[in-house]
């Protein structure tokens, strides 16, 4: 009898161990918008409503900002280039255009939203990718100048001075959308969510267990792997790298991040730039701008400000991380030969 009791006791202990810890599943949605794949996961509050609110916020912006949709406000702005008439814009569109212009002024030669004609010449926007002939490229490059994008913020209008000029907001739209989606989620009362807008990851609040979100930074040389894992809370991590979209012609690889100075794919010695910031739009814009700028200029710019942090992956296998990300950062690429440096102010 004692033995039977003993066996029963053991069985009880066994089943007690087997019970899995209860974990609440997030509500989630995956959808295509802004020419990329987006996913929204909400972990608390009215989850389903929050997911739908976020998706709606993103799709609304896509309707305003899409260059391929002829009914968008951006298409209207581009269509009226050079005809002298100011185009009335939604407050969000003019806010984003003004912001993008300010980045161009902060980092001259590294960032320009009027780069669209050059992108078209390379075929990155039409998916018929090709190396443009020099005359076409020179003609397109002559149209790139965000100083000729005139903004009237009080009237919420904008005007492109020269005919043929075009604005493409691909380098800032996802970051701005992240901000709008985050606000929409918060409005429903949810506080814990994770957005992945085409590789721009926005972490809202903390995880259900109270810890910070863990966000991997893709290895630009092996996209199945990560360079490191970052701890994030109420921030966006945005990454730009030549590996995202590219093509090969005559043995040369051409990627989609065009240097507005040369009209050619940026060749700054960086393989990828990740910007982490509580300002979602800033993170998105800077990842592109600082990829073009290169390591030295990127770090100088970082030292001049306090509102973002960087992970740079250089072509000689260094991963440069700024000090604000040091805490909670875990390197994961050492076995692939990467070395890690922390940069301090």
């Amino acid at each position: 009898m004692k033995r039977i009791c003993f066996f029963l006791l053991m069985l009880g202990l066994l089943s007690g161990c087997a019970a899995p810890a209860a974990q609440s599943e997030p509500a989630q949605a995956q959808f295509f918008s802004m020419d990329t794949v987006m996913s929204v996961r909400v972990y608390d509050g009215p989850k389903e409503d929050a997911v739908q609110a976020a998706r709606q916020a993103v799709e609304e912006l896509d309707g305003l900002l899409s260059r391929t949709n002829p009914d968008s406000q951006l298409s209207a702005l581009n269509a009226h280039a050079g005809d002298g008439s100011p185009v009335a814009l939604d407050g969000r569109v003019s806010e984003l255009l003004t912001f993008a212009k300010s980045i161009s002024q902060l980092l001259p030669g590294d960032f320009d939203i009027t780069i669209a004609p050059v992108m078209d010449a390379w075929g990155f926007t039409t998916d018929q990718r090709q190396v443009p002939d020099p005359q076409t490229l020179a003609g397109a490059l002559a149209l790139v100048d965000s100083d000729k994008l005139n903004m009237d913020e009080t009237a919420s209008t904008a005007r492109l001075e020269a005919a043929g000029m075009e604005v493409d907001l691909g380098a800032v739209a996802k970051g701005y959308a992240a901000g709008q989606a985050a606000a929409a989620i918060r409005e429903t009362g949810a506080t814990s969510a994770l957005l992945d807008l085409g590789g721009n990851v926005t972490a809202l609040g903390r995880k259900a267990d109270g810890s910070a979100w863990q966000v991997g930074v893709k290895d630009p040389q092996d996209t199945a792997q990560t360079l490191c894992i970052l701890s994030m809370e109420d921030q966006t991590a945005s990454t730009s790298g030549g590996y995202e979209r590219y093509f090969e012609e005559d043995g040369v690889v051409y990627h989609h991040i065009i240097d507005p100075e040369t009209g050619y794919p940026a060749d700054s010695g960086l393989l990828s730039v990740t910007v982490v910031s509580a300002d979602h739009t800033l993170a998105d814009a800077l990842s592109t701008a600082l990829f073009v700028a290169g390591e030295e200029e990127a770090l100088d710019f970082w030292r001049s400000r306090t509102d973002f942090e960087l992970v740079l992956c250089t072509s000689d296998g260094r991963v440069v991380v700024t000090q604000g990300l040091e805490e909670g950062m875990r390197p994961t690429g050492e076995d692939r030969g990467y070395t890690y440096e922390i940069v301090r102010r």
Partner: protein
Amino acid sequence: MAHGLQRLTRAAVLTALALALSVAEGLAPLTILFPLPGLRLGLANLVTVYALCRLSGREALLILVARCLLGSLLGGNLMALAFSLTGGLLALAVMALLLRVPGLSLFGVSIAGAAAHNTGQILAAMVVLGGRAPLVYLPPLLLCSLVTGAVTGGVSILLVQRIPAPGRP
């Protein structure tokens, strides 16, 4: 009175033997050859088998508990005590049952005992560590117990045959 003293002495000698065997085994652990947590030959089990066959279940239990307690005092810790006691008790229970099943030899009894010992250890580890993780070691341990159980089974046959019930002429 003399009978009681004899039983006590006998149990004490067997406990000392079991303790010595388990310490000796610890000096040359099998885990050097085969790195599997919890893997051991189980020589102390010989004493349990012998006690079950030639003495009584109660004495076997007494010797086992004394051996485990003393063993943990000698060099183990509370966690090791929990593992060896759970494993030992489960092995004792299983072997005592199987010895009453007809058609088995001490090979089968020892193998079942070794398997039960490993199962008990892992159960204790799961309780102490509070998770299912130790369970992954159980299948390889069970397979190993086929070999270690057969070895101790062979030895215990020699032991039980050669050394008759103590205290009898």
